[in-house]
């Protein structure tokens, strides 16, 4: 026994020192150069898509991976946000703007070998707009009245009324054209017409796509394998980049770390635009925020410079709910300039000379955490005492968004063309303005681009004057990639990590 014990102890100790030695031995790690030769790219993402079918889940990450890589839509949103031909090579619009005829590309095949035909387009659009549809993006497609198959490559779509955003909406990831036969299992085994096909996934870790042999123009695709790797924590993202485990973070979420990456000659850091207006969302239906003067006071108390500094400068100030890169943008940041004295005076006029107490319910995202602490400090200076509550997304959706049980929250509205939210009844801001609603109805019906731009400018001005929400900043898209990786999207006009034109410089 004694020998046994001693040997056993010795063995264990020996094992430990062997492990300790391992610590010094450099681990065998795949390095970027090897991957470049094999046409492999490892793409880091902060958030993991639950399923791989945009019909089943609202998460942006679903679209980021699938859109343009696995699935394609009728039209296509390019890297600058313009609408270009997608599966439809051309289309015509009727005079009154209610009828669209799409001509599909010939010879397009799904990854399972099935042809992509007009019937698939009808199937997809019907599934999105049907009365019993459960797709998260359903409300974008309820203007569709009828979809008809004219011939295998021609589809006619009739709308209930003119919809200025229709061509855009059929171009985004939500309207991915799915195969009639394969659609049911797309959540776990996605099958589309795009240049890359699904190979495997490890939940909580990665999704792997490979070049699709069925793609119509195989020569145009320079990459063989895409590995989407999910890394949530900012410090871990930095580690992964530095260790060479990841080639790119198309949307790097922690501006604090960017200086570290910039110092590394292997990486390029590119700051582009997004559709994400970050706002101090305010419950307009609740006292005292229902008072215009209170909201104006808040607007005067917000110092955007500090907020943007916390984003390491990767954000642009906004004075309304509209992205600065849009041609219809007007600069309204001076509507209520930073002015503590003015803010205090307005607050006193509204009947709150000593301020008031309120809740600030934050979703679990970096920018909200960063800006939240700063907003508490800034509004504290005019006597508004905010108590922060950190919520998980499900709670935020339920409490803040659905039940509207909140005073303030901070969130980025990342959908394109999302000004329409201000015209909605029962939306979580509780904003109700006839002037805005009338103006928005005109925007949707207006087919003339110049006139529409004027109406959009007016819409921005109305909500800025009403100080509906605290308009903070437009999130920047901080893209980080290996300098030899060519063709990544700089901006983020719609959720997509489009790898179609990307290649390694060898």
């Amino acid at each position, binding site marked *: 026994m004694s020998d046994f014990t001693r040997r056993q102890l010795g063995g264990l100790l020996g094992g430990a020192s062997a492990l300790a030695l391992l610590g010094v031995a450099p681990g065998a790690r795949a390095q970027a150069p090897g991957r470049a030769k094999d046409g492999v790219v490892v793409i880091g993402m902060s958030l993991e898509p639950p399923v791989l079918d945009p019909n089943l889940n609202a998460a942006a990450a679903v679209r980021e991976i699938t859109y343009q890589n696995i699935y394609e839509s009728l039209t296509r949103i390019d890297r600058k946000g313009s609408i270009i031909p997608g599966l439809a090579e051309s289309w015509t619009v009727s005079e009154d703007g209610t009828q669209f005829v799409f001509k599909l590309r010939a010879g397009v095949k799904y990854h399972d070998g099935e042809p992509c035909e007009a019937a698939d387009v009808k199937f997809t659009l019907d599934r999105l707009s049907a009365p019993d549809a459960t797709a998260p993006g359903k409300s974008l497609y309820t203007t569709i009245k009828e979809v008809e198959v004219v011939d295998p490559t021609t589809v006619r779509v009739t709308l209930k009324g003119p919809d200025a955003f229709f061509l855009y909406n059929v171009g985004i990831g939500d309207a991915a054209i799915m195969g009639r036969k394969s659609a049911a299992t797309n959540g776990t085994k996605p099958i589309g017409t795009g240049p890359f096909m699904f190979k495997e996934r490890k939940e909580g870790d990665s999704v792997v796509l490979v070049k699709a042999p069925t793609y119509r123009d195989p020569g145009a695709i320079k990459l063989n394998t895409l590995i989407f790797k999910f890394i949530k924590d900012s410090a871990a993202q930095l580690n992964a980049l530095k260790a060479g485990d990841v080639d790119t973070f198309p949307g790097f979420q922690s501006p604090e770390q960017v200086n*570290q990456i910039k110092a590394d000659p292997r990486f390029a850091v590119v700051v582009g635009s997004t559709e994400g207006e970050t706002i101090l969302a305010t419950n307009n239906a609740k006292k005292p925020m229902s008072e215009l003067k209170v909201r104006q006071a808040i607007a005067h108390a917000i110092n955007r410079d500090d907020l943007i500094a916390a984003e390491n400068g990767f954000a642009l100030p906004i004075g309304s709910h509209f992205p600065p890169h849009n041609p219809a943008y007007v600069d309204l940041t001076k509507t209520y300039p930073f002015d503590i004295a003015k803010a205090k005076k307005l607050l006193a006029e509204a009947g709150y000379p000593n301020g008031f107490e309120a809740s600030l319910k934050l979703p679990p995202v970096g920018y909200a955490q960063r800006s*939240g602490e700063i907003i*508490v400090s800034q509004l504290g200076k005019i006597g508004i005492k905010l108590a*922060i509550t950190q919520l*998980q997304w499900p709670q935020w959706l339920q409490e803040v968004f659905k039940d509207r049980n909140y005073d303030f929250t901070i969130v980025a509205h990342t959908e394109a063309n999302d000004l329409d939210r201000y015209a909605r009844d029962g939306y979580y801001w509780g904003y109700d303005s006839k002037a805005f609603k009338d103006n928005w109805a005109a925007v949707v019906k207006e087919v003339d681009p110049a006139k529409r731009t004027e109406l959009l400018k007016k819409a921005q001005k109305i909500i800025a004057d009403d100080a509906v929400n605290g308009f903070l900043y437009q999130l920047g898209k901080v893209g980080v990639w290996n300098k030899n990786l060519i063709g990544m999207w700089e901006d983020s006009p719609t959720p997509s990590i489009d790898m179609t034109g990307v290649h390694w410089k060898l």
Partner: protein
Amino acid sequence: MSAFWSRAQRHVGFLIGATLVLLVALMALVSLFWTPHPYDDLRMALKLKPPDGTWLLGTDHRGRDVLSRIMVGAQTSITVGLIAVSIGMALGVGLGAWAAARRGWLDEVVSRLNDLVFAFPAVLMAILITSVFGASATNAILAIGIFNIPVFARVTRGAALMMWGRDFVRAASALGLGPLTITVRHVLPNIASVLLVQATIQFATAILAEAGLSYLGLGAQPPVPSWGRMLYDAQTYLYDAPGLAIYPGLAIALTVLGLNMMGDGLRDLLDPRLRLMRVG
């Protein structure tokens, strides 16, 4: 009592522990009235400053004074720990003493409930509890408090059972005193030292638990500083400002060390035969 003090003065571990605990308590007390700088004043221009004459421990990622935040953080740790242990003690001692007095089925039920709480992965349940009720210092207290109940119940039951076997308690019972009276008059006073020692150790454990929950973002909410949360934030800046990851951890470790040494010292001084439960 004077005998206790004279022995205490010679017990090095106890003295070190007590000194550490006193220092931390003093720091929390002072921070109620004074800190070198306001603990919640955001100055983005001053972020991540290294320690110097003005900012003794430097500034954090929001330009706040780290020393001031550590001082105020002591309040958070002490409050959460103290209340959580009090909850556990109030309910646990009651349950344990009751089970020991009544024995039989009640004893069995209490034991099974204890097993139940011990069998759950405590961190997991704490995460669930704070998810149900929302992340806040109050709910962290609740989550930690719940796990303290069975600890005290077990210790109390064991010690009380021993007392119930003693002659003087049997005599009291024979005289016709009820179980409640006996428990209050004879049992509890005699096991008070056991409970005191256990409470000190649990206090240490509770502070560790609070730090862990805050580290996961489930404890006190910003701008209220908490040591665990400071460590979480610091991890983002390991390359730029490694000091941020050191001071709050040191504060936790020294506080817990102080309490543990004090607890062990108390045990030696009060009753060397006491057996303690350590629940991690």
